[in-house]
Structure formats: structure tokens, C-alpha cells
């Protein structure tokens, strides 16, 4: 029987990169098989996914040798038409995969069918069947932009599955999802597998990988046996602090209502001591990020008060609060603009009035903590997204904050990256600083934080750390 996907001697080299992303890689996947692709950041996993989906070199430019055959079609040289309906690809970021112009989920799914040239009369039955199969029939008439991340990702998978590809490629489909969304995607993949779809799934999440029939691990663009030995990350230390103390945080019956009337926070009270590590967990849309934005004054309470070091945030500007509070945003693209990592990391401390050797020390300490001393001169945009995220974290650390606020610091990180972020939390707390992190990863919260606050529907439920 002909394999669903056959890759022979594939080498992919991106312009302006020294090392090839994939080096002489060979892999065959039988029809109906489910194969998980594991490996560290920069191992070539995403490149493999793009090549299997026929997007290299047609859409993503690269120098390619070797062969990629999907069914009977040469994917490296095929036109878009030839691959349409044979192979589909799903990416990590749910919102970016939706067309952005459709008022309902139903029409979002219809978009792919329109491109396939499916007659109008056949569209609704096909859409209804896929939505029912994937367990999201209830979303049919909702507006895609109003859905949670987990729901959007299921819609994104549904809109590819509607097109009926024999081979489904997924590139970290659960990287940005909460545990509930991850479970839903895992169940959905089980169903597709049972129905005979061939699946190639790039993932870090163990639960997803374990449900695959077989796993392949990449390292340095090659397939390796077993798990590649990775350098364990030992305890880190914050070297630039000058005996600065952590800040206290008090939320006093905090309430927040967005101008459109949505009540995101209701009567939230919370005390965080100086030097304490607190994780805030909860499903997508439970109000975690809204809460975090109050800590640096990006949002102002509509009722109740927020006190940092005993002072209400109301009468202080965001820039003034930045002297005390370091806030690392979820999306690295919002913060990076300098032409080198070193300049980027130095931006925050310079804005806060630090100068000369002081700034140099802060940059050194921040780059050491994030494992980036070798990337000083690199342009941040030449780095992988997960590494760019570490650059933004370094930029915040270099501001030597008394209170460190991290919004989803582990999304898109491989296990090594997650460990590093955990060590950074530990080191900042050891230096006396307060750390508050928003995360959808309960294991990360349990391992690295003193206590976990669970949020649901804009309220908090305090939960002691298991075993503590």
C-alpha cells in the first residue's frame, strides 16, 4: 500500500541561516497512522510540518533538496490546486488561522468549501456533519472572534477537516490552549484517527504525544533515537539586584467592567506578601489577564481598589508603576523593536533612568538568566517565537522589578524553556522579589509557586498548594 506521506532525504535551508532547518530527513507514514513529532525548539519540527503540507517552497521560501510525496502528489513542486483537499495544516495560534472576515463559524467553515468549488447545496450538510463529529455543533452560529482560544482552535481544525484532507498536519495545536481546550483537541484527534484520517502532529504536550501511535523525535533537523540529552537547567541567581525588596499587592474588592458591558472581574480580594510567588490559573476568558493588567495600571478598577506597596494605583501612571512592576506580555511581537537583543533588553532600564555600567550589569544578568548571552548581537526577529518570548522576559528582568508579573510565560516553550522560566521565578523570589504569573499550566503553577489562585468567571477561589 502506498504511504500517505513519504519523505526522502529532505534538506531545507532558509535564506540567511547558517544551519539547515532539516538535514537529509526521511520518514514514511502509512494511511490512517497517527504520528507525533517531538523535539526541542529549533529542532526543525515546524519546517517538517510546512513541508508535509506542501507549503515549502511554494509559500515559505527556502532552498530544498529531496522529495516529499503526499499520496501520489509531489508536494515540493505541486500547485495549490493539486494539494487542495489532500492535505491540510493547522497552526498553533487559533485567531490567526481564521479568515477574520466571517460573521459566523458556519461561514468560516464554508470558506474552504468555496475555494474547493463545492456546490452551494452541499455545503450546509457537510458543515453540519463536521461540526457534529467534532462536538462543536453548538458553535455554528457564533461569531468566531467572540470564542475562547480553545473553541477557536477547534473551529480552525474543523475548517480544515471540512475540506476532507486525507492527511492532517498539526503544528503545536494545543500550545496556546488551557487544559480544557487541550483535552477537547485530544478527543477530537482520537475521533478523526478512528475515522481513518492520517495525522502528523507536532507537539510538546505529553498527553497529545502519548495518544499517537508512534512518536518521532527531531534534533538539529534530523530524526534521533530516544529523547535527546538536554542540558539540565540548574538553579539561577539574580545577580544585578541591589538589595531591593519585593512589593506587596492588595486587591480590595476589585471589580472591572469593560466599556461594552462585559463584567470581567467581580469583587476580587487578594493579598500577596513581599517575596511571595503566586500563580493565577483558570480557563481562557476567566479574567486572569484583566486582573494582571490592573497591577500595572493598564486597566483601572471600576469598583474597589488595587494597592501596590500600600499605595493605590489610581493616581499613578503606567510609566510610574513600571519603576516597581515589571510586566511581561504574552505576545512578544508587541514589545520588540530594537535591532539587537542587547539594545532591546537595555531599553527598559534606560527608560527608568539607569545609565552606563548599571545598565550593562542589568543586561548581563538578564541575558544570563534567560540563557541568551550568545544572542546579544542577534536581531530579535531572526529568533524563533519561543526564544523571542525569552527576549521580552529578559527585557523585563533588566528593569529589576520589585514585582514581576508574567502573562502566560510558558506558551510555546519546550520543556526546557518551561524549566528555565520556572528557575527564573525561583531566582527572583530568592532575591526577595514578588512574582505573580498568569498561566493555564497547572503543573507549572504547582511546581514553581507558593500558592495558586484559581479564577473562574471573574472571581477567585483560593487553593492551597498540593502537598505544601
Amino acid at each position, binding site marked *: 500500500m502506498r504511504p500517505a506521506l513519504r519523505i526522502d532525504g529532505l534538506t531545507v535551508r532558509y535564506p540567511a541561516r547558517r544551519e539547515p532547518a532539516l538535514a537529509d530527513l526521511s520518514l514514511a507514514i502509512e494511511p490512517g497512522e497517527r504520528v507525533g513529532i517531538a523535539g526541542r525548539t529549533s529542532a526543525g519540527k515546524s519546517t517538517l510540518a510546512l513541508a508535509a503540507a506542501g507549503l515549502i517552497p511554494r*509559500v515559505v521560501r527556502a532552498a530544498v533538496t529531496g522529495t516529499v510525496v503526499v499520496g501520489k502528489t509531489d508536494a515540493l513542486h505541486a500547485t495549490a490546486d493539486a494539494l487542495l483537499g489532500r492535505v491540510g495544516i493547522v497552526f498553533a495560534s487559533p485567531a490567526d488561522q481564521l479568515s477574520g*472576515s466571517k460573521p459566523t463559524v458556519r461561514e468560516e467553515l*464554508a470558506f474552504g468549501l468555496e475555494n474547493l468549488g463545492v456546490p452551494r447545496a452541499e455545503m450546509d450538510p457537510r458543515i453540519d456533519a463536521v461540526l457534529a463529529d467534532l462536538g462543536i455543533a453548538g458553535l455554528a452560529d457564533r461569531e468566531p472572534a467572540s470564542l475562547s482560544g480553545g473553541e477557536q482552535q477547534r473551529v480552525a481544525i474543523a475548517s480544515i477537516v471540512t475540506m476532507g484532507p486525507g492527511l492532517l498536519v498539526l503544528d503545536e495545536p494545543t500550545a496556546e490552549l488551557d487544559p480544557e481546550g487541550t483535552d477537547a483537541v485530544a478527543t477530537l484527534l482520537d475521533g478523526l484517527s478512528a475515522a481513518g484520517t492520517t495525522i502528523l502532529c507536532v507537539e510538546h504536550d505529553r498527553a497529545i504525544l502519548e495518544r499517537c501511535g508512534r512518536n518521532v523525535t527531531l534534533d538539529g533537523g534530523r530524526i534521533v533515537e530516544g529523547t535527546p540529552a538536554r542540558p539540565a537547567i540548574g538553579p539561577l541567581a539574580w545577580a544585578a539586584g541591589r538589595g531591593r525588596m519585593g512589593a506587596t499587592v492588595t486587591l480590595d474588592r476589585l471589580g472591572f467592567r469593560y466599556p*461594552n458591558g462585559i463584567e470581567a472581574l467581580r469583587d476580587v480580594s487578594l493579598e500577596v506578601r513581599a517575596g511571595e510567588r503566586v500563580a493565577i490559573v483558570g480557563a481562557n476568558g476567566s479574567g486572569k489577564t484583566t486582573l494582571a493588567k490592573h497591577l*500595572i495600571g*493598564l486597566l483601572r478598577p471600576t469598583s474597589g481598589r488595587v494597592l501596590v506597596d500600600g499605595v493605590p494605583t489610581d493616581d499613578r501612571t503606567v510609566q510610574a508603576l513600571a519603576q516597581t512592576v515589571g510586566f511581561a506580555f504574552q505576545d512578544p511581537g508587541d514589545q*520588540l523593536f530594537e535591532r539587537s537583543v542587547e539594545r532591546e533588553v537595555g531599553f*527598559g532600564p534606560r527608560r*527608568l533612568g539607569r545609565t552606563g555600567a548599571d545598565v550593562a550589569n542589568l543586561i548581563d544578568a538578564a541575558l544570563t538568566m534567560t540563557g541568551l548571552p550568545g544572542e546579544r548581537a542577534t536581531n530579535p526577529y531572526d529568533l524563533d517565537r519561543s526564544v523571542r518570548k525569552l527576549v521580552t522576559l529578559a527585557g523585563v528582568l533588566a528593569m529589576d522589578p520589585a514585582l514581576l508579573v508574567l502573562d502566560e510565560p510558558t506558551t510555546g516553550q519546550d520543556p526546557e524553556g518551561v524549566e528555565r522560566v520556572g528557575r527564573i521565578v525561583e531566582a527572583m523570589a530568592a532575591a526577595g522579589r514578588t512574582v505573580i504569573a498568569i498561566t493555564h499550566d497547572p503543573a507549572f503553577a504547582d511546581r514553581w509557586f507558593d500558592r495558586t489562585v484559581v479564577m473562574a468567571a471573574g472571581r477567585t477561589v483560593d487553593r492551597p498548594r498540593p502537598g505544601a
Partner: protein
Amino acid sequence: MTRAATGYLVPGRSWLHRRHPLTKLLGVAFVLVAAFLLPPVALIALTVALAAIAVSAGLVRPVLRSLRIPAVLVASIVLVNALFYPGGSDVLVAVGPLAVTREGLTFGVVSAGRLLVVFVALMLLLMTTLADDLLEGLVVHGVSHRIAFVALSAMQLVPRMRDRVDRILAAQSARGLAVDGSTITRARALVPLIGPVVLSALVDVRERTLALEARGFGARWGRTAYRVVPDSGLDRALRIALLAAIALVALTALFGWLR
């Protein structure tokens, strides 16, 4: 928060909402041609007509609110022309070396009026038309769906950009960037803002390209349509009338008959 999918749309069922997107697009084209080619007196008639349309479609408030967008541009056009119009001789008010001339003021007001009239016509289109309907409306009438998609992206550009700028502003002020204060402070704040805006817009284009390719947008064979945009006899008649009116205005201007 503006959502890119709906943009400026004000949901409703008014007669203007129910017109075919192409009819409304031709309406905007007519206003554009008439405002710039006809003598300034025509602006009064156009303003009255647009006001009547806004009232009948129940859009007076949203239209008035949207006028904030071009406010600075309009004010500066009037001011700069009133003061510095070349060849202005009839001085109305003079303060020191600055003089407001009648010719300059007239030219400024007329130019600003032309811009405003076209802006309001465009807003009436955007407020009553789902971007996707415009796309399908264009495709049904033989426009390549790729070109229609460019038009759609253009309609969504401003709301998308505004969301992005808000996010980046928040992220950079959290790093201690002063974003309000004196003019010099604000000018200095531009680099750390424009950098991420431009770069993330480019990344966005790449990701959207991949997403569209994944959904088969690059296919060259016959495309079908899910969305049915209702087209009525009234719409067809209106479109013929608008086309005729555009042609008439263009010809009038061409031969200078009104001069």
C-alpha cells in the same frame, strides 16, 4: 474594541442596510466624482442628501461620532489655506505677520467640505455593509476574488491596525515608555511604537498568507459562494441611475458646461 470581522458595521435592517453592496459602492463613487468635479455649490446639495440618508437609516449618531477621525486633518486644511493661500489679497483679519484672506478661507473650506462629504459617504457604506457581503457582491459581478479580497483587507485595515496599536502602546508603556506629555516626549515615543507596529503587521501578513493557503485560497479553479447577497430590481435601477449620474458629472466637467 473593534472586531475586524465587523469593522464599523452598525447592525440594523434599514433600507440602506438592505441595499446591494455594489449599489452603495457606486453611491460613494458618485459622491466622490460630484464633490470634486462639480462647482462648490454642489457640496451643499450633497451634504443635504447625505444628511437625509443618515437620518432615514438611523445613523446620525454613529456618523457624527465618526467625524472625530478626520477632525484634525479638516481643521488643518482650513487653517493652513486661510493663512497661507498663495495669491490671497482680500484680508479679513490680520494679527501681526499672519493674515486670513478671503480667497484662502474659501479654498480651505471648499477643500475640507469635499473631503468631509466623501468621508461621510464612505462611512455610510462601511456602517451598513458587512465586509464579506461587499466581497461576494464584487465577485458575483466578475471581479477576481483575489482583487475583492484585497478590497476586503483594506476595509479591515484600520480596525485591525487600531487594535494592534492599542496593544503595543500598552506593552511599551509597561516598559517605562512615556506616551503622553509634551510634544517632544510623544515624538520620542514614536520609534518604539512604530517599530513593533510595522514588524508585527509584516508577521501578520505572513501568518494570514499561510492561513489562507491552508484553506485553499490559492486555488485557480472555479470558486463557489456560500453567502447569497440579495440583489433587487430596485438595486439594479439605482445602479444604472448612479452610473448615468457619474457619466453626466464627468462629461459636464469635461466640457466645462457650467462655466
